[in-house]
């Protein structure tokens, strides 16, 4: 059983989701999976080498992950309320058309 390969697989799944999914909640879930993959590598290597310091860093990293999630969720709610959609492509189109209208006027 190799945790490094498991972590790489999870990272790949997360990156696949980040690149292919258009819904913002799905993008957030993909970011969570990537963060979990990175932290898993760190924790399991630290525990296999019997280093408490690695585990300590991870406790700090978990709180950073939570902050990132909170910020992204707040932005997501604001974007969904303002534009009425959570689709990244639609949001980009809306922004682009707004920019074009601004440039015309």
């Amino acid at each position: 059983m190799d945790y490094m390969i498991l972590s790489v697989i999870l990272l790949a799944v997360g990156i696949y989701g980040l690149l292919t999914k258009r819904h913002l909640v799905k993008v957030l879930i993909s970011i969570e999976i990537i963060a979990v993959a990175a932290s898993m590598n760190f924790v399991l290597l630290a525990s296999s080498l019997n280093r408490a310091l690695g585990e300590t860093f991870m406790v700090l990293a978990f709180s950073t992950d939570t902050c990132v999630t909170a910020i992204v969720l707040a932005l997501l709610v604001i974007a969904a309320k303002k534009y009425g959609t959570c689709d990244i492509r639609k949001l980009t189109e809306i922004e682009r058309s707004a920019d074009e209208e601004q440039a015309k006027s």
Partner: protein
Amino acid sequence: MIVELLAVGLVVSACLAIYLDEAVYSIASLACMFVLMAVLYALSDAVFVAVFQLAVSAGTLAVLFLAGEMLSENPEKEKSLKKIFSAVLLAVVLSLPSIFLSVAVTPANISSGFSFAEALWDLRVIDVILQGLIMMTVALGIAIVLYERGEGES
């Protein structure tokens, strides 16, 4: 054997979290992944990290459930059971390299000599306090942004 099953479960739940269309189901899969991860940490003698993982993920998942329920749009076409089953099968195949292959890691021969509590409170105490402050600032900032947004709408 348990660790191998956990690894398969981790990859399957991660794949389902990405693959399923309904936001609530994918968040439930993510919850399953977090729990499996915590069990994996506990089995690898990182009990403190496992407890932190469970505590942090409980909060994250509660907020994600609320946001997912609020923002989810009905999927145009629901995925059939056959497609979901084939995604699970693909995930199981994906998880196999982690069970049968291995990357050689040469462990360093230096013993750390720190316990978890010593490492956290003697070496990283400034980090812990700073992170607490940053988290409080972020929470306050989000509350202000949402409050001003609500004020602007009314």
